């Protein structure tokens, strides 16, 4: 939840600053001063605002661009889970999934993952665009990727908390989009427990 909380606080602070600024300027019209060129005076703020935005956005860009979630060919996971998706179901399997037929023939499999291990979800769709969203036991969205026909998306994550994780669809895919779900367990490699 840390990313979400930080983003919400940043947005909330900036939103309040914007609203406060707008009302400050609105109220300033109650005491108009004729003959003064305040437009030019306020316009002088343009350069500092430009510089401030360039600095803030550049720093944010620099700090965040190193945290891209994309796997490279050099990223080697501890374990690979194959994910097949179609309207309106997920199939998580330890065996490679290459065809839609396998979605129907392979049975559901209980996926157990050791906490803090690097797991790769190899996600593909066999019909339309879907989303593969991983929700922690607390209900927090911790990772996601899209599932797209004709492509395989590699999502590598490290899940530190034990428990049952839910998978929900995060791309609108039709009438039962909201009902798509799967789950897997993350257990402690020390105690073997999911809690």
């Amino acid at each position, binding site marked *: 939840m840390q990313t979400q909380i930080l*983003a919400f606080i940043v*947005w909330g602070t900036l939103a309040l600053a914007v609203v406060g600024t707008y009302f400050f300027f609105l109220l300033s019209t109650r005491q108009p001063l004729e003959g003064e060129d305040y437009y030019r005076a306020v316009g002088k*703020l343009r350069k500092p605002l430009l510089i401030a935005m360039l600095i803030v956005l550049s720093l944010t860009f620099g700090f965040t*661009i190193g945290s891209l979630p994309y796997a490279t060919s050099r990223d080697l996971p501890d374990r690979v889970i194959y994910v097949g998706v179609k309207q309106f179901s997920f199939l998580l399997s330890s065996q490679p999934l290459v065809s839609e037929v396998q979605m129907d023939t392979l049975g559901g499999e209980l996926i157990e993952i050791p906490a803090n291990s690097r797991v790769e979800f190899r996600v593909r769709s066999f019909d339309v665009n879907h989303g593969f969203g991983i929700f922690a036991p607390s209900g927090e969205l911790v990772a996601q*990727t899209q599932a797209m026909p004709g492509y395989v998306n590699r999502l590598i994550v490290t899940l530190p908390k034990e428990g049952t994780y839910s998978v929900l669809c995060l791309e*609108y895919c039709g009438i039962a989009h909201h009902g798509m779900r799967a789950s897997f367990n993350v257990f402690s490699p020390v105690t073997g427990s999911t809690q």
Partner: protein
Amino acid sequence: MASTSISSLPLFARLWSALFVILFPVLGLLGVFMRLFQSEMLPDIEPSWFYAAMTLHGLGLVGLVYATSFALLITRLSQYVAFRPSMLYVSTGLTGIGVILLVVLFLVRFGPGWYFLYPLPFKSAGVWPEWAPHVFLVALTVLGVAWLLWKLETLRAMAKSFKFSTMLGWHVLAGKAEPSVPPAVLVATICCIAGIIALSAAVVMLVFFYYTLLTGNAADALLVKNLTFFFGHVLINLAMYQGIGVLYDVFPTYTRHQWPMTKPMAIAWNLVLLLVLFAYFHHLYMDFAQPVAVQIIGQAASYGTAIPAAVVTILGTLAHVYRRRVEWNWSSLLLFFGTMGWAVGGTAAVIDSTVAANFRFHNTLWVPAHFHTYLLAGIVLIILGGIAHFVSRAREYTLRPARLPISLLLIGAYGFVTMFYIGGLTSVPRRYAIYPIEVAHGSTLAQVALVFVALIMVGVAVYLWDVGRLLFLPSKRSS
């Protein structure tokens, strides 16, 4: 305008203003239906109606704000350049045909969402009939032709009065003050060029859809997704930019100071033309098959688009009112606060365009949060303000300050979107008719949002009584 007759309001502006004040509440009610559904207050209705309503709500309102903002901008431009009215009405008529087809599709519960990701329109899961995608593609084609004609006619009309380089403000960049080009012309030029590029992408996208429709073969889903979001992203941004063109032209009426084209403004809008074409990549951050380079370009371009908006238009609006004797009324207040919605929603959009944040926010309620902020609390207010200006001038009607109803609109709009933001904070997915147990609190947020919707409805109702009805009153005889 000195005439007392409503006919002095250009018929074109009156037509689009009337369409907006009718269709905005109707399409908005589809959104209310969706929040009622998510609040679990409509247990006997099938989810397919939720998704059909979601599709028409999205397509309808995006199309409506895009078309109305452009119609209002054209009306302002008609002071400076001569349009061929026949072209404008042909485009309007074709738009009407497209909209009627979309309404028919709603009735058969066609629901692929407003950006209809390929190949979802062909995969109905038994909900909509087989002919629905055919009709949908025809509707999109008709709308595409209509809006392409509109853009081309606008460019033609402006090019007859101004040199192309001056339309883009390049003479100002070179330090020349003459010829004097209204900022609305600069904005319209940028919108026409970007619009034609976006509509061209839509043509290619439609070719892929027709290819699958006619041959049964699959196209490259990632390529079509890129085309879809390129088109959709540019289109919705142009809706806002076109409104800003109206703002530049109308707002000075109430501050009694001109809003001239300056060098920063010319630089800003030329930059916007470049950046808006590359920012769309942020819609595909979660498509890991995309090259990483374009994801990085997407974040850089998205950040870049915020700068000209803030430094030129937002600051310019504030500078225009500071310690000046401003005539505050329905029009000027809505225009002023419309830019505030753009700033607040834009801030959330910049956050969401950060790949690391998007990893946690993509397709959660954070997305409708930010776009409802700059649509509902942004461009919609600007359009309502623009309509109020046109109708009041045409009828020589003095608009009242309307502080109370505008306060209700603002409290309602910001309260409404705050429920979306909290939904994003707490990982509630967007576009869910029914919330599963992990995110069951989404229903509570929808219920609270409905309280704020009630405030919006009161504010809109007062606007319709004060301003909207003037569009429909019979013409007064000129004395």
